[in-house]
Each structure stands twice: as C-alpha cells, then as structure tokens.
C-alpha cells in the first residue's frame, strides 16, 4: 500500500511489484488496482486532473524530464481531430531496464494510468509501443488488456461512464531511434523510425497529424497515485523541482545490479553502496554514467551528487532515464567508448549527415585507437567530429553519440595516449 503520508512513501510504481501473479486482474484488484478509477471518472474533470499533475511536479521519466502536466496542457481542445495517447515503452537506451519490470510484473498499473491520462485528454484510441525484443512483455500487457476489456475497464462506456477508450499494444522491431517520440510516431504509422522536425510538436501535430501525447511507462504508472493522493502529496516527496520517487536501473560493476525506486534526491553513493551492495572491485568508482549511455560521464568526485535533474545538470551530466552504469577500477574505458560508438553508428537513422557520417567516423577512429593503430592526431579528429555533430541534427542521437567520446577525451586523455604509445611500441 502506498502511504498517504509523503514522508512514509517507500515506492509508487513498484508498490505492488513483489506480489506474485499481479499480472492477473483479480489479484491486481485485490491489491488496489483500479480502486480509485471510478472516482476519477465520476468526480474529476480535465482541468482538475491537469492541475493536479502540474502541482505534482512530475517530470517525464523517459529521459528528457519535461513536466508532464505542462505537456498535457499543450494539447489543443476542440480541433475537430481526435487526440491520441501513446505510451513509449521502446526502452532502448543502453543501461535502462525499468519499464520492462513495470510491464511484466504490474501491467494493470500502466493500463490504469493510461485510462486516467486518456480520460483527462479526451482520448479515444491509445497505444503502447513496446520494443520488439520484449516479446514476453508484449504478451503480458496484451493479456492484461484483454482482461481489462472483459471487465469494462477499457472499451465503450468504461465502468458505466460516458468515457470510452481503446488500448492497443504495438510491437516495435529493433530500432533504438524509435524511443525518440516523433520517430516512434513514424514507426507507429508503418514507416522507418526517422525523427520529424519540431515544431510542430506532437501535442499539436503527432500521430496521423493529430494532437498526440507521448509519455513514458514510468510517467504513466505514476498518475494513479497522483490522482488518488493529490498533486501536493507527490510534490512533498523528493526535493523541490525534482519531486517524487524515481526508478534507477543500476548495472555494470556493482554487486547487486537491479531496479531501485528511491526518493529523488537520494545520493549516487547511497544508491550504489546501500542498495546495490557496492562495487565489485575497490571502493571508488572509476566512471559513473548516470542517465543512460548518452549522458556525460561522472567521476569519483561526483559520488555524493544527489539523484535529481538539477544536481546532475550542475555536475555536468543528465539524470536521463535513470540508467546508471557503474564502472570500477577494472573497466577499460577505451573499449567501452568504442563499443558505444559502434552502437550509435548502428542506430543512426541516417537522415542528417552530421550524425550519419559523424557516428561512422567516431566508430572507425575509436576502433583504430583501441587496436593500437591510432595516432596523436586521432584525438583531435575525435574531438572535432564529436563537437560538430552535437546540436546540429533533427534529434538528440548525435548528442548522445558525442557524449561518451567527449567524456573519454576530457577525463582520460592520458589513458588514451598511453594506449597509443603502448601499442606503437
């Protein structure tokens, strides 16, 4: 049970996650799923819901951290066009694996959040775009949706109200870029996932050129608690401007990798030492990538940084999706950077030349540096290529590709030079 006292809250999205067979509607309902939904459908209206979500301070959990209530308020009313709600479950940022657990262990929480969001936005058709590899999760969510339809939680006149909404699972097919919201829309329209120019933003012209809201799984799964306990309750968890709980996916060189839902503002060190059982080797991390592979690296000196959007920004990185990749003293940061360069080159959609060409350059140069065929000049080439990609493309993939390269050059130039010398000799 989620506590109504914000100081006592232990979990929001993971509150029911350890209960067995929570995927079954009956069991989920016994544990509180959909309990507050009738009140929302009966007593709440759009304005009230959007206000509560704004008050809650909830920021998008997919990576960008954009205020959810504000995003919802951009959706124009009475355009004569339908409004669509899309759940972004294309969890592909290296290091991120939180949405998978919500979907496979508590799919009804996500469905309930989508019904509430759909009700607030006047949505009739909603979709969950799940990455293609998550076949098991597709099946679990699909089965949960079928049960929800049978119980009149989805479909026509939900629970006897005037509100009707359909919900469909859509399976992706292996493309990192489809996690970018406009690429996701392209993909959902049956095309390659190539991001669109913004503006117009999806809120104005999205799916089939209609008003569209795209929200992450964790964001939508937080909505039921916000509406039940109120925006102020949520705003009292965490720290100002960085409110609520957040799931952190911790991987790499820690003893207990996994998903941990903690109040925003918990420090990196506490998360890694107390929750994740510390590092595999040594006591000081060599590198921490705090928000997924696209975010700039932090070092041991940042170990006490609080896990908030603002503090991470101040430390020179980003909270991103909360995917924390930890490397201890044994890590080969050059090999890791080369691997990530390969990833971005593979995943670039190819429509912007700085990204298409740049990611290829970064991979080729990093490969020769790693293999000891590099030269001093390569450091300049890497730096130039990376700085000329970031910010010059339609979407942020190029920025993500540049981040590990620039971090390596900034923090470990000596290690790179040593590698050049070592192999040359």
């Amino acid at each position: 049970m989620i506590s109504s006292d914000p100081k006592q809250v232990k979990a929001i999205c993971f509150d029911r996650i350890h209960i067995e067979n929570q995927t079954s509607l009956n069991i989920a309902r016994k544990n509180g799923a959909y309990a507050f939904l009738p009140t929302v459908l009966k007593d709440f209206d759009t304005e009230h819901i959007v206000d509560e979500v704004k008050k809650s301070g909830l920021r998008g959990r997919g990576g960008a951290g954009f205020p959810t209530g504000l995003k919802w308020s951009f959706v124009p009313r009475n355009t004569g066009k339908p409004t669509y709600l899309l759940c972004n479950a294309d969890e592909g940022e290296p290091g991120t694996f939180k949405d998978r657990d919500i979907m496979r262990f508590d799919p009804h929480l996500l469905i309930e959040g989508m019904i509430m969001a759909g009700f607030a936005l006047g949505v009739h058709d909603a979709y969950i775009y799940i990455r293609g590899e998550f076949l098991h999760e597709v099946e679990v969510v699909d089965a949960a949706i079928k049960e929800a339809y049978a119980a009149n939680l989805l479909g026509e006149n939900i629970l006897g109200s005037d509100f009707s909404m359909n919900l469909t699972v859509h399976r992706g097919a292996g493309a990192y870029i489809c996690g970018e919201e406009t690429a996701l829309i392209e993909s959902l329209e049956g095309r390659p996932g190539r991001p669109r120019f913004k503006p117009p933003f999806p809120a104005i012209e999205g799916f089939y050129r209609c008003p569209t809201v795209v929200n992450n799984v964790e964001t939508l799964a937080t909505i039921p608690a916000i509406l039940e306990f109120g925006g102020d309750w949520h705003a009292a968890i965490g720290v100002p401007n960085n409110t609520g709980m957040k799931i952190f996916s911790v991987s790499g060189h820690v003893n207990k990798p996994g998903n941990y839902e903690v109040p925003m503002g918990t420090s990196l060190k506490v998360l890694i030492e107390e929750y994740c059982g510390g590092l595999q080797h040594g006591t000081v991390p060599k590198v921490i990538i705090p928000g997924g592979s696209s975010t700039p690296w932090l070092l041991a000196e940042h170990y006490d940084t609080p896990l908030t959007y603002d503090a991470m920004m101040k430390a020179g990185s980003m909270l991103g999706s909360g995917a924390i990749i930890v490397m201890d003293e044994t890590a080969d940061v050059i090999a890791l950077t080369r691997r990530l360069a390969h990833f971005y080159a593979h995943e670039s959609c190819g429509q912007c030349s700085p990204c298409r060409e740049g990611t290829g350059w970064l991979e080729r140069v990093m490969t020769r540096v790693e293999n000891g065929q590099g030269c001093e000049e390569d450091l300049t080439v890497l730096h130039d290529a990376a700085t000329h990609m970031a910010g010059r493309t339609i979407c942020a993939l190029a920025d993500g590709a540049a981040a590990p390269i620039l971090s390596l050059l900034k923090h470990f130039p000596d290690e790179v030079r040593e590698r050049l010398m070592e192999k040359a000799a």
Partner: protein
Amino acid sequence: MSVGENVCFSLDRLQEIDVLIKKYPGKRSALLPVLHMAQKDFGYLSMPVQQLVADTLDLRLMAVREVVTFYTMFREKPCGTYLLEVCTNAGCMLNGGNELLAHMTESLGIQVGETTPDGMFTVTEVECAGACAGAPVVQINNAYHEKVDAAYIDAFITKVKGDQL
C-alpha cells in the same frame, strides 16, 4: 515451411490482420505487426513474402522494403532453428558479454552472424537488450536468458542437440 513463389497467409491469419487494421486510423500502421506475423509464418521475409505483405496492406513493395531493411529484427535470410542473440553493449560488456560471444562462436565453429552447417544455430551480436541487471543477456528465439555463462550455453547446446537425435 519453404517459401515458394506463391506464398499466401492462412485464412485465420487474414482474419487476424483484418481485426488488426481496424485498430489504427490508417492501414499502414499495421505494417510492423503484419511483418512480425509473416516472419513467424514463413521463417524470414523473402521477396515474395514482402510482396505478399505489400499486397495485403495495399502498399507499394518499396514501402515494405524500406521498413524491412530499417528494423534489425526483420530478417531477409533464413536463420538457424535456434537464434542466439548475444548482447555486448555497455552493461553486458562490463560483465563478460564479449567473452561469452567469443566462446559461443568458437565452440560452434562459426563467425558472428553465421549459421552452423546443420542449420541448427545462428549466433548474432545485438545492441542493448534492456535487461542489464541480468548481464550478460542472451536471447534465444526471443526468450530472455539472463546472467548467462559459458557452462549455461554449453548445456543448452548439448541439450537441444540431444533432443534432435
């Protein structure tokens, strides 16, 4: 099932596709799900199968081709009975993903991307599978296997080879 020139979907499949199309504002949205179905039915997406999908959804072949070639999960060539996809991205790399991949190709005597001569195993390297707490991750025919080591893979290979006999 072998793919000849005259491929067609079963009646059940066609009904399923009809229901699917109605869930979207436009028919084209059904393209990815229908390609998944076609790949399941025919094993891979040969040119006749892609033409079939195009005809089923009233699309030009080119519209299907650009999607098939864009998404890595769609295959234009057959693969082994067991498709072993090894993640070697950050989380898995830091926990032995590369070594595991090398072990698999070595013990099966193939290169990454190849299929064993008996058509049983294909080994590929994939990007982040989104299950980094279970690193290294191997997907075997779409099912996730986590914290996999060489012994686990060897046992799996021995087992399915035994089942064949």
